[in-house]
């Protein structure tokens, strides 16, 4: 499997072992992002890094197993409910002038969004490169859901992800 190195700046303790061991000078960047053009995926930096800030990720991810329709249906019901609740919390937050209620509703809105994203992830959208997500993106390109749909954003995504529309 073809791989390349990535660095988590949150974990990096600037020991710079990656600089010493990299055979191609891919790790000497100032912005924390390892140069993908130069990286040959040898893994020397990840092995040497004392803070475990570097890991190797594949160029092509394995396709996750398909979800059963019964699970997708049940999860979608839950997800629809969460989406409705999120809209209620957002509207209350937008309308209130009370600080406590505003913060609580913002928290509820964010919390529901995170947990709904998780539910949808486990309804067949684990991987952005997976069949379901790619099909959705293609569908938006062919049939934009509304006239004001940001088609250029979807086009840029398709291009970056190597999707032929």
């Amino acid at each position: 499997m073809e791989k390349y190195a990535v660095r988590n700046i949150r974990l990096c303790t600037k020991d710079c072992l990656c600089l010493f061991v990299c055979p191609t000078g891919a790790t000497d960047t100032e912005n924390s992002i390892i140069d993908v053009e130069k990286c040959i995926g040898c893994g020397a930096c990840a092995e040497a890094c004392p803070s475990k800030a570097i890991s190797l990720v594949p160029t092509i991810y394995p396709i996750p197993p398909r979800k059963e329709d019964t699970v997708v249906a049940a999860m979608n019901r839950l997800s629809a409910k969460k989406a409705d609740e999120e809209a209620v919390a957002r509207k209350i937050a937008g309308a209130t002038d009370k600080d406590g209620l505003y913060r609580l509703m913002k928290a509820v809105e964010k919390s529901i969004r995170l947990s709904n994203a998780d539910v949808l992830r486990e309804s067949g959208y684990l991987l952005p490169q997976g069949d379901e997500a790619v099909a959705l993106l293609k569908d938006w390109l062919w049939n934009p859901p509304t006239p004001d749909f940001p088609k250029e954003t979807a086009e840029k995504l398709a291009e970056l992800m190597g999707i032929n529309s």
Partner: protein
Amino acid sequence: MKYICQVCGYVYDEASEACPFDQLPDSWQCPWCKAPKTQFKPEQAEAPAEEASDAADDAGADAGSGLAGGSGFAGDAAGADDAGDLKQLSPGQLAALCTNLARGCEKQYKEEESKLFAELAAYFTAAVPPAEDASVEALAKQLQDEISLYPGTRAAADIVRDRGAARALVWGEKVTRMLSSLVSRYLEEGEAMLADTEIWICTACGFIYIGETPPELCPVCKVPSWKFEKIEGRR
């Protein structure tokens, strides 16, 4: 007797505590996650074998009604056995889906893709029709209704041994129980509940915590405190 917190799993063991559970004041909170006393269940009620088979019975009915176009998700009305229809999602769901894909790209260190999916999420969020009854009471009721969906959904996942879905449902139920308790508490106590204190959210699972500082570990998903974010007031 042992009592278990349904949000974080904390065990209140009467054998090693000075006070019997029933005699704790109503204002008593879970020492780990601050869930109210009402979120505790006696250990017996959680007997795993019984619960699993009950839930499985529910699931048959539940998953069935979903497929038959009973209610709930967009695309209900159309052909029930068409798998494509099961994926018909509302704008609010598409917003959450794009948030998920943005997070997925972020985890893969694909920053540009992550930003673009976040833009699509913002578009779909703006496309959600405003809620009709936007009262705290209505929200409290909806959260209660959501909690009742978990046993059936969980059983649909368990029948086909979908461990990933089951995991998401465990976190989802716990996080929702906490939201539900907090919203109910706000209805009783009003602004006093949140005066001079911070609200924190776990950016991994969505767990909400009220206090000066976030907990050391998330009581639901166990990530460290730096994964918590403070909810800011209006600027």
